C-alpha cells in the first residue's frame, strides 16, 4: 500500500499502531462504552486533518448539540472556534425534543445535505458521532441495517475519510447474544475498540484495532490516556531503531567518592536505579544528584511520591544538600505527587508533559515503585519500560529510586517493576546490623559500560554532606560504623607508636654518631700536636748542625787553612 492511502490522525501512538493512520477514503468504526473517549478520538482526527493536512472536516453530532461539544472541547488546546465554520463544520443532527415520529424514515435528507456541504467546503474528513443514537429511533433491525448501508455507500461514493462512533457497552450483548450494530464492524474497513476498565478502583484505558483491511497493525491492546493534547496511545517501541545518539559523557552523582566508584559518574542519558529499604538514604542520593545537576546549570525535574516538595527540601538541607536555591533560580522543578491515585499511564503522561514543559535534562523519580501501586501491577512494568525508553530517546538522564518492601529479604531478587534489568546502573543501599548498630552500606550492583568498584562501602550522612567510606573486612566480617571507627583508631595508634619508636632510635643513633665525631676530633688534634713536636725536633737538629759547621769554617779562617774540598763520594 502506498503511504498516501492513510489519513494520519495525529494521535500519538495510534498512527504507529496502524502504520500511518486511518484508511484514506474509507470508513472507520470507533466503538466503546460511555466515557471511553470516542468523541475525543474522532475530534482529534478532524482537527489534525484541518491543521496539519489541510483537509476540512465535518462533524455530525447526533447526541449533543454542537455548542455543547465545542464548549466541552475548550479544555483541549485545539481552539475549535477558530476553525468554524470554514475548515470545520458542525452539523446538528440531534432529534429535537418536539420531534415526532410517525412511521419509518431514512437518513437520505441528511446525506443529501452533507453531500452538498462537503462539496462547498471541499471537506475530506467526516465524523458521524454517536450513530447509535439515531439508529435507535428506527423501528426495526432491518431499517437500521438499511440506514447503515446507506451511510456506508454514501461515504464510499463521497470519497471522504469517515469515522463513525457508536456506543457499545463492552462485552454487553443484547438478549439474542448479538452485539448491537455488530454488523457495522463487518462492513467498515477499519474498526477500533476503546475500553475503560476499573482495576482495583484505578481507571485503565485501552485501545485496540480490531480490523484494518489491507494493512498490518498492532493487534494488542494498547493503553492510552487522555491529556489536554488529546489521546496519547502508548506503543511498544519499534523493532528497528537506528541513529539513537549515544554519548560517553559522564555526569556526577553528586557524591565524589561514588563518582570514583563508578569510574567517573553516570553516563549522560542513562537510567540509574537506586534500590533500598526504607530509610537507606535513597532520597538523599536522589537529592545529591539533583543538586549536582542544577549546579552544572542543567534543568531538572524532581518528582517526589513520598513526601511534599518543601519537606524533601528541608530534610535534604540537613545533609548539606541545598535545593531551595535551585528552586528559586528556576532550574529545579519540584513535583510532589504524594497522594496521587490513578493509572500509571496517566502518571507517565503527566511526568512526560512536565519534563517537556520544564525542558528537563535530568529527571528524578523518587520512588518509581509508586507506579506499581494499587491496580497498576499489570501495566506498571510496561509504563516503567516506556519511561526509560522515552528518557533515553530524549537524552534525559533518569534517576529512579525504588523501594524494597521486605526488609527481612536481603536477597537482591530485583525490584517490583523489574527495572533493575532495564536500567543501566543499579546502586543498592542496605543496612548492616552489627554489634548493636545499623549502618548504611552502598554497593554498585551493575553499571553498564563503566569500570566500577566491586566493594561495599559505608554511606555516611552528616551535616557536612554525604561521604562514602571504606569498610574493613576482618576475618570474613565487614566492619562498619563504630567497629570501623575503632579499627581505624587502632590502626592510627599503631602507626603513631611505630613512628615514635623510629624517632627514638634515630635519636640514639645520632647521639652515638656525635660521640664518635667528638672523639675523632680530639684524636686529630693530638695527632697534629705530635706532628708539630716532630717537626720541631728536626728543626733543632738542623740548627745545631749548621751552627757547628759555621764554627769550623771560622776556626779554619782564623788559622789560614786550605779550603775544604767537598768530598761527596
Amino acid at each position, binding site marked *: 500500500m502506498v503511504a498516501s492511502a492513510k489519513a494520519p490522525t495525529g494521535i500519538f501512538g495510534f498512527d504507529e499502531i496502524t502504520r500511518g493512520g486511518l484508511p484514506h477514503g474509507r470508513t472507520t468504526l470507533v466503538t466503546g462504552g460511555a466515557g471511553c473517549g470516542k468523541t475525543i478520538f474522532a475530534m482529534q482526527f478532524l482537527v489534525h486533518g484541518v491543521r496539519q493536512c489541510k483537509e476540512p472536516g465535518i462533524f455530525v453530532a447526533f447526541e449533543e448539540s454542537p455548542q455543547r461539544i465545542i464548549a466541552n472541547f475548550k479544555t483541549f488546546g485545539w481552539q475549535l472556534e477558530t476553525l468554524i465554520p470554514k475548515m470545520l463544520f458542525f452539523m*446538528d*443532527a440531534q*432529534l*429535537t425534543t*418536539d*420531534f*415526532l*415520529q*410517525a*412511521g*419509518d*424514515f*431514512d*437518513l*437520505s*435528507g*441528511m446525506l*443529501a*445535505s452533507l*453531500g*452538498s*456541504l462537503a462539496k462547498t467546503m471541499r471537506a475530506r474528513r467526516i465524523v458521524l458521532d454517536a450513530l447509535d443514537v*439515531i439508529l435507535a429511533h428506527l423501528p426495526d433491525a432491518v431499517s437500521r441495517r438499511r440506514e447503515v448501508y446507506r451511510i456506508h455507500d454514501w461515504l464510499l461514493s463521497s470519497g471522504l475519510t469517515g469515522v463513525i462512533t457508536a456506543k457499545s457497552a463492552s462485552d454487553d450483548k443484547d438478549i439474542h447474544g448479538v452485539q448491537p450494530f455488530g454488523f457495522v464492524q463487518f462492513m467498515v474497513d477499519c474498526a477500533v475498540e476503546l475500553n475503560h476498565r476499573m482495576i482495583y478502583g484505578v481507571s485503565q484505558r485501552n485501545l485496540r484495532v480490531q480490523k484494518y483491511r489491507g494493512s498490518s497493525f498492532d493487534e494488542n491492546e494498547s493503553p492510552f490516556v487522555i491529556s489536554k493534547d488529546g489521546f496519547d496511545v502508548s506503543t511498544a517501541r519499534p523493532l528497528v531503531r537506528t541513529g539513537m545518539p549515544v554519548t560517553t559523557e559522564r555526569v556526577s552523582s553528586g557524591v565524589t567518592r561514588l563518582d570514583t566508584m563508578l569510574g567517573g559518574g553516570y553516563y549522560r542519558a542513562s537510567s540509574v536505579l537506586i534500590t533500598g529499604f526504607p530509610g537507606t538514604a535513597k532520597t538523599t542520593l536522589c537529592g545529591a544528584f539533583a543538586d549536582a545537576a542544577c549546579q552544572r546549570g542543567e534543568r531538572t525535574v524532581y518528582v517526589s511520591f513520598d513526601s511534599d516538595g518543601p519537606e524533601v527540601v528541608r530534610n535534604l538541607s540537613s545533609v548539606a544538600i541545598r535545593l531551595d536555591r535551585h528552586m528559586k533560580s528556576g532550574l529545579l522543578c519540584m513535583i510532589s505527587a504524594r497522594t496521587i491515585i490513578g493509572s500509571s499511564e496517566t502518571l507517565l503522561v503527566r511526568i512526560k508533559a512536565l519534563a517537556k514543559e520544564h525542558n528537563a535534562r535530568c529527571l528524578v523519580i523518587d520512588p518509581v515503585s509508586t507506579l506499581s501501586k494499587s491496580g497498576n501491577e499489570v501495566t506498571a512494568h510496561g509504563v516503567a519500560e516506556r519511561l526509560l525508553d522515552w528518557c533515553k530517546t530524549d537524552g534525559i538522564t533518569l534517576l529512579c529510586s525504588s523501594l524494597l518492601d521486605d526488609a527481612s529479604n536481603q536477597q537482591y531478587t530485583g525490584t517490583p517493576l523489574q527495572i533493575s534489568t532495564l536500567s543501566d546502573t543499579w546502586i543498592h543501599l542496605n543496612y548492616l546490623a552489627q554489634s548493636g548498630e545499623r549502618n548504611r552500606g552502598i554497593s554498585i550492583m551493575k553499571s553498564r559500560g563503566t569500570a566500577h568498584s566491586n566493594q561495599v562501602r559505608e554511606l555516611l550522612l552528616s551535616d557536612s554532606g554525604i561521604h562514602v567510606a571504606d569498610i574493613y573486612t576482618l576475618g570474613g566480617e565487614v566492619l562498619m560504623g563504630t567497629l570501623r571507627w575503632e579499627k581505624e583508631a587502632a590502626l592510627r595508634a599503631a602507626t603513631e607508636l611505630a613512628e615514635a619508636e623510629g624517632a627514638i632510635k634515630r635519636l640514639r643513633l645520632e647521639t652515638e654518631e656525635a660521640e664518635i665525631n667528638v672523639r675523632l676530633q680530639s684524636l686529630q688534634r693530638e695527632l697534629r700536636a705530635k706532628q708539630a713536636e716532630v717537626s720541631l725536633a728536626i728543626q733543632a737538629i738542623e740548627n745545631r748542625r749548621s751552627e757547628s759547621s759555621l764554627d769550623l769554617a771560622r776556626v779554619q779562617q782564623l788559622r789560614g787553612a786550605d779550603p775544604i774540598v767537598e768530598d761527596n763520594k
Partner: protein
Amino acid sequence: MNRRNKFKFQLYTAEETQNSSLAFSNLLAICKAHLADRYEIEVIDVFRQPQRALAHGIRMTPTLVKLTPYPQRTIVGTLKQTTRVLAALGIENSGAQSLPLV
C-alpha cells in the same frame, strides 16, 4: 378549530424512495379526508435542493413541516399512524371519512 385556516405543508423527500412515496400518499390522504381544499403541499426533494434541507435542519427523510397554522410542527416518518399524525397537526378527527391508509 372552526376557523377555516389554510394548512401549509412542506414535505421533504428523498427522490422516489419508498418511505418518501408513502409519506406523500399518506399526507395526501389525510388532507383530502380532513382538510378538503384548505391545504397546500410543497414537496422538496433533498437531493435536488440540498441547500434548503441544510438551511432548515432537515436530517431525516421524509420530514413533514407544518408551517401554518401555528404552532409549527415537524413530523418525521411515513405518517402512517393517522391518529397520532392528526393530533400532532392539530386537525380535528371527524372520524367518518377516515380512509384506510397504507
